[in-house]
């Protein structure tokens, strides 16, 4: 039996297995997934507002199932329980888009705890530090290997870090920190410069921000690291 015959045999061995779930059922379930994502975002952001002087505004209605809108503006707040929430401060801005993406704009390296709390309130497992490496005993880099995994989760559009929580691998979280190149492999722009320093294990690629000494990477999610 040569390779081709074996490949054909394997494919044919499962060819009789078909999905019996109607697409309408999948879409209905997908709507439930979207709804689940919005609940912690709204509740968490409201909690953050009680402790800080954050500005809460609302965007599109919860029932909106239309296409993503990357250029939407902040609108006057309506019913808070039915709308994605945005937080805007001088130091940083977090905007939850209707498509589930979280847009983060960091203007000043201030209040990392507030940014971390806001993002966690949005349901994102995240660790934010503006005073050192993301690495610690409880916050370890996620061993994904390919750069594309990180890119599917985070993208930098202009000055905005766009995070897609739904693309996070299971068990992974996001780390935002300010130590690019500190002994870690760094991805600058579109050119990966991989390769761990001597004596250290291979680490996942990181993505440097376009402005400032910020970097973002994936870490293993844990209560100690990502909340």
């Amino acid at each position, binding site marked *: 039996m040569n390779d081709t015959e074996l490949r054909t045999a394997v494919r044919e061995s499962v060819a009789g297995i078909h999905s019996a779930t109607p697409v309408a059922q999948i879409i209905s379930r997908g709507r439930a997934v979207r709804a689940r994502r919005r609940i912690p975002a709204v509740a968490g952001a409201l909690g953050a507002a009680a402790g800080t002087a954050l500005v809460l505004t609302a965007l599109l209605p919860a029932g909106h199932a239309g296409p993503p809108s990357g250029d939407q503006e902040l609108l006057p707040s309506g019913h808070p329980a039915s709308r994605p929430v945005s937080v805007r401060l001088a130091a940083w801005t977090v905007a939850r888009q209707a498509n589930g993406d979280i847009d983060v704009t960091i203007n000043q390296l201030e209040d990392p705890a507030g940014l971390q709390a806001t993002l966690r309130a949005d349901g994102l497992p995240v660790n934010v530090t503006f005073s050192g490496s993301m690495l610690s005993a409880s916050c370890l880099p996620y061993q994904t290997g*390919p750069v594309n995994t990180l890119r599917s989760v985070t993208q930098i559009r202009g000055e905005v870090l766009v995070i*897609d929580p739904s693309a996070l691998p299971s068990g992974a979280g996001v780390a935002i920190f300010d130590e690019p190149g500190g002994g870690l492999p760094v991805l600058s722009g579109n050119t990966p410069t991989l390769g761990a320093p001597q004596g250290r294990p291979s680490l996942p690629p990181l993505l440097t921000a376009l402005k400032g000494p910020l970097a973002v990477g994936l870490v293993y999610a844990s209560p100690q690291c990502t909340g």
Partner: protein
Amino acid sequence: MGVGTQQSDFAEFYRSAADECLQAVLVSVRDRDTARELVDEAFARAWASWHSVRRHPAPKAWVVRTALNAGISRWRRRRREVPVSDPARVTDLPAASGESASLVDPRIMAALMRLPARQRQVVALRLILDLDTAETAEVLGIAPGTVMAHLGRAMAALRHDLQPELQQENRS
């Protein structure tokens, strides 16, 4: 893209990819009901993030990766694994509507089920989903060279398992 276009776009993708994704996940997780549940959940998440999944270079790979990740999460929550006493048990499950269990070749399926988990995943992605080595490596988070090594070992094991039966068939 309007809501109607989005739905029809996703529906077309689902119709074209659902069977292959289910087959690939089934070979990976070895249990048909679990595979069906994981694939349904993965497609639901794909619909919820369709704006980005549709731009993914290999949406089928995204679905399978999501399904496998969901399976890992489920396993971690339960902290136990459903035992599979008979490697060919998957073929004994009741057939779903319009689906015949007899269409599954029990010898090959049993040989597949005897492979280690990683080799099954590589076989599922490379041979059933027809991903290339790089795509398979990304889905599984391993190096391309490791994919090729696993595939080589899996092919050798399958050939070893199936060769005597096929030779016997040819003689008779």
